[in-house]
């Protein structure tokens, strides 16, 4: 198993940008109005997962 990281379900994302603004690693950007996580930078701190108002972010193993 690889290191865990956050993954955004793009079909669920409503592009509010909340996860982007709180990520301490600045590992998330909005691309084409969907949040995308840079898995290399992600430390799996789960702050974005707690922040997403609709639960569109989950932890997964690479």
């Amino acid at each position: 198993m690889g290191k865990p990281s956050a993954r955004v379900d793009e079909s669920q994302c409503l592009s509010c940008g909340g996860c982007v603004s709180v990520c301490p690693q600045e590992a998330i950007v909005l691309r084409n109005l969907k949040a995308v996580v840079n898995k290399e930078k992600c430390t799996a701190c789960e702050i974005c997962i707690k922040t997403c108002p609709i639960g569109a972010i989950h932890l997964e193993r690479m």
Partner: protein
Amino acid sequence: MLDYDVVVVGCGPAGSVTARYAAESGAKVLMIDRRPEIGVPVLCGEGVSQRIDSWNMLEGTQWIANKMDGAKIFSPDGTMVTLSKEMAGNETGYVLYRDLFDKELARQAGKAGAEIMLRTEATKLLMDNDEIKGIQARQFNETFDIETDIIVAADGVESKIASWAGMKTVLKPSDLETCAQYTITDVDYKSDYCEFYVGRKYAPGGYIWIFPKEKGTYNVGIGLLASLSSQGEPLKRLDKFIASHPQLKKGCPMRLLAGAVPVAKPIQSYRDNLLLVGDAARHADPITGGGITTSLQGGKIAGEIIGEAVDAQVFDADMLSQYEKQWKQDFGQKLLRNYVVKELMLDMDDKTLNLLADSVKDYKFEEFSTLSLVKALVSKHPTLLMKLTPLLQLSKKMNE
């Protein structure tokens, strides 16, 4: 190569107002927005103070969905505090069609001479050593460089521009409200009051709102402090609230949106060749989450200072610091004070909120504002002021 005096990144209210006043001051302005349509998607509760009328920034009325009769605030045990238009000199607030509101502000910028490029995303700053020379952008499959003297970061709560310029912009979860909202039609309920439901029972560190739009249509939303939230909790709590509301649960949901509102202390809003406006500058009220009035006020100041900078052909931090000096004078103290009140309120449990609500439920408020509410609470509970004053002084010192 494209060459402008100013490039404004983001065509929300702060960006459009900045662009308008910069263009009116004679600057050559380009506005870019990554979205294909200005104002869409809406990321907002759509309530705003009627103070905007006196600023004459918008024409027409197509962007107004409704005028509020006032506000009703409900504590966890149902105690109601009312701020009505009769008490508040008839000045309350509007519920907006934010998509049309944003378009009207952008149109005013365009009329003033600003150019607008849609579906255009900023991809990086063009730097020469430490100096900002322009910005790189992408529209569809084309990537191009834009030379400019000033960049305005109006790119929202998720602003990347300031971070690219080396400024610290990451928000603490305790400084962000995470929000969800439905627009519900065909609701058999008649009230032109905004309703707010406060307390941990409803929304830890935030509140639930019901804003009346056109007849039978309501925005029903929730904001939770991200530090007190869990995966998907805002939407779950909102669904539960609606399911337990006798009228709302029978309505038709037409729109679901998410939102993220900074409830932080404002950050440094300038450096050489760069200004931050709106949510990117954290210009939102830490108590209410409202950011439109401060975005318009700040945008106007930014646009006018840009005009002066272009006239003088001076774009350094010293010149642009006048922007920060002015917005701090206009609304900086209010944001700081409300940040301190927000922190104080976080310590209050539902029982305390019930007691506070009960103590001001018959109070005659003279103004439709959080300040009049805070003043009323302090007049009934002088110990609150004793807690507030030292916090405020400390906070002022840290901000200097």
